[in-house]
């Protein structure tokens, strides 16, 4: 069996945005985060599931997330939750991505930017 295809551009800031958005709603551990991404994107965004952890560790290091080990069903899990700094980062990223998506959509639908006055 070969590993599932993944989207190479996935790592360019998108996982960070998705993770922050998911954790804004509730704390989760890594497996839950990956499953939530798969479910909520209809598996459009596919990724080697293990690569989510360096992103989580990086966000934690930057103070955007906190990690806490908790026992669940006899096993220890590391739960991640959003910090106020993470919420601000999410807001900035959301704005950036919304603008980007709007601009791309505008081009795809054949629209043009307003021309400057001569």
């Amino acid at each position: 069996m070969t590993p599932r295809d993944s989207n190479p551009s996935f790592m360019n800031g998108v996982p960070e945005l998705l993770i922050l958005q998911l954790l804004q709603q509730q704390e989760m551990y890594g497996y839950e985060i990956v499953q939530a991404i798969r479910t909520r994107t209809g598996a459009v965004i596919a990724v080697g599931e293990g690569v989510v952890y360096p992103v989580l560790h990086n966000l934690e290091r930057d103070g955007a997330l906190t990690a806490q080990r908790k026992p669940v069903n006899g096993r220890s899990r590391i739960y991640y939750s959003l910090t106020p700094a993470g919420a601000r980062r999410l807001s900035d990223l959301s704005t950036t991505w919304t603008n980007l998506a709007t601009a791309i959509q505008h081009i795809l639908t054949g629209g043009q930017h307003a021309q400057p006055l001569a």
Partner: protein
Amino acid sequence: MPSPLPELRERLLRAGIAPRHARRYLAELTDHLSDLTVEERSHGLSPSDARTAALARIGTTDSLAAAMIAQPQFQSFTARAPWAVFGLTPFILLAALWFISLCLLRLGWHLFLPGAITPFGSVPGQQLLDLRNIYFQVNRALYLGAPILVGWSMILIAIRQRRRALWPMLSLILLTLLAATSHVQANRLEVPTGLGHIRVDFALRPAAQNEYALAVLLLALLPYITWRFRSHAELSA
């Protein structure tokens, strides 16, 4: 399909990822793999097929390693500044241990040999198990063993973080040079108004000191040679 985790660990450490970051990454991947296996089993796969499917989903060794190695902030200080760890730390540690040893020498001189011109040399009527003798011999062992202890700590860091042999060898050569050239002198007469004077000077010494330096080098090197042989044997097996 074999688990990628043991190979991943080696690759992360060799790439300079700090052991604590590598350990946590592997621990979370192990948990994740376990969850994926349970999920695949719930879809009706056999245990071995579920394991294979879980390994395929978690990612290849290459992708898992690349995701972590791409984050330079997870590199250890040893990987970022090996010259500081293996070039400067031995000096600092050895200076600290020798300083402690010389302070103890000074204390013993004051407590056990008040008025003696030097703390070195035999005391008339002193027994082998005399408290004074034990005190000075233990302190002597600390002084002479300090380069070996520091060498072992450098070797331990090099092994733990999979550093190239060049760096711990640099440490051991520095330590051997210090051991070969250092000499402690203690004499009450050098500073007439003082309580006694202890100093360490560095110069080339007679053959006896060279034998000590060689012993330092070989003893400090022993754990590294043992580890290399074991690693080689494990790879060959």
